[in-house]
């Protein structure tokens, strides 16, 4: 997805565009290592590199707020949660014998298909759009907040209700097993 914006550059790319493509390549590379490495914890750590690379891409597109939220939520919380789960269950140093899945070809097909769909949608939607990086910042906190709470407030509220439902569901699920154990 990150590479999709690159072809829109003109014949003489600017420094930002070159940096964008380079970071994009590094991000995709890190993502590939994430799914192909045989060491579980290394996969989680490569995920940090991938998500960090994405944050840098947002920064290069002047979407500063989104970039920091990306770092805060994904690197700071989701990966920590992942690592916590790995440490709690099984995280051997060295190769994990069961890190190979028989489904890997099916997974590859699904991944390529979804990547193609996403890239196609993004390219199709933003084909002629050109972000002027030198002009007024278009991804600042203020702009993001105004757009989010004026134009997209309904999806925002729908999402928050969805998350609340998930939260309540998680609590219910965890408490039910608790009570069962207590009854025994």
């Amino acid at each position: 997805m990150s590479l999709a914006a690159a072809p829109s550059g003109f014949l003489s790319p600017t420094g930002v565009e070159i940096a964008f493509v380079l970071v994009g390549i590094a991000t995709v590379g890190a993502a590939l290592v994430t799914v192909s490495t045989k060491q579980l914890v290394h996969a989680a750590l490569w995920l940090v590199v991938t998500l960090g690379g994405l944050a840098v891409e947002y920064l290069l597109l002047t979407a500063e707020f989104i970039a920091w939220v990306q770092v805060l939520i994904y690197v700071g919380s989701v990966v920590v949660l992942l690592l916590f789960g790995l440490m709690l269950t099984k995280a051997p140093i060295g190769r994990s014998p069961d890190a190979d899945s028989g489904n890997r070809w099916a997974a590859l097909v699904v991944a390529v298909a979804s990547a193609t769909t996403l890239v196609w949608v993004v390219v199709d939607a933003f084909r002629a759009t050109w972000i002027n990086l030198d002009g007024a910042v278009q991804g600042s906190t203020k702009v993001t907040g105004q757009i989010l709470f004026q134009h997209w407030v309904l999806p925002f509220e729908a999402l928050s209700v969805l998350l609340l439902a998930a939260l309540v569901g998680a609590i219910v699920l965890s408490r039910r097993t608790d009570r069962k154990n207590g009854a025994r």
Partner: protein
Amino acid sequence: MNDVLDVALRLVAVLVVFLTFPLVVGQTEHKVMAHMQGRLGPMYAGGFHGWAQLVADGVKFAQKEDVVPANADRRIFQLAPAVALLPYLLVLIAIPVGPHGFVGQAIDAGLFFVLAVMGVGVLGSLMAGWASANKFSLLGGLRTAAQLMAYELPMLLAAASVAMAAGTLSLPGIVEAYHWWWTPWQIIGAVVFFTAGLAELQRPPFDMPVADSEIIFGAYTEYTGLRFALFLLAEYAGIVVLCALTTVLFLGGWHGPWSDSVGWLWTLIKTFVLAFIVIWLRVTYPRMREDQLQKLAWTGLIPLALAQIALTGVVKVVIS
């Protein structure tokens, strides 16, 4: 050219602060702890009240052999101290010290930048805990992760309350908008923020993850020499960052008498008073148990932070 020079100077200044302030806090901790416990603390190194003790410590650390356990994951083990330390350097860039642009680099979403990057530092402890191939280290890593997940939320909520009050996420902007009555208004948020920050730094009484007398310094058990020193430096740099942030968000940063000329001094004084409190807490309270830690975060701090946000919202609507 002038711009380049300006940026370079600011970065050098931030680096100097990063290298000296944690040492000052460390030395203060030596002496303050000693006096609170009826001892003298270091007295010999350097002659005058042992001022050079930390320099001597540094030399000692540098001379020690850098050991990597045979079964450890070598690369991650060696990378972990850098991951733990560097985020604090980055955070210092965004913290405003005085009025009129006395800041390393003003960032639009500075508050989010600071919290996001501080969260990355904990990855260093997790990496160290896992890569050491040591049960105590793994336990320490687990506790670190659990603690982080519990205390990240109240910290964010408390910070969000300040951002709501100021109407901006930029750190200089927040200090700019400060009035004296903010401190009583945001006092709950301030306490929550400071407490959660202490827990995130794994300072006593929240030092269950490193608990030196139970799991032998947790994630850092296997570290020696310079790498261990880097972890210690990260802890003290963290104290500086946390105190400076609390100052900027809740105590009005450079505001005070004659703030136009000596504003930076006010920031420094407030920061060091808070650092003193951090040390004071370490000497005062016993270590909390793991379940007490979790309970404090989930049933104490988070409701308090939510109440603070509600209060901020109500007051904000009333005065606007």
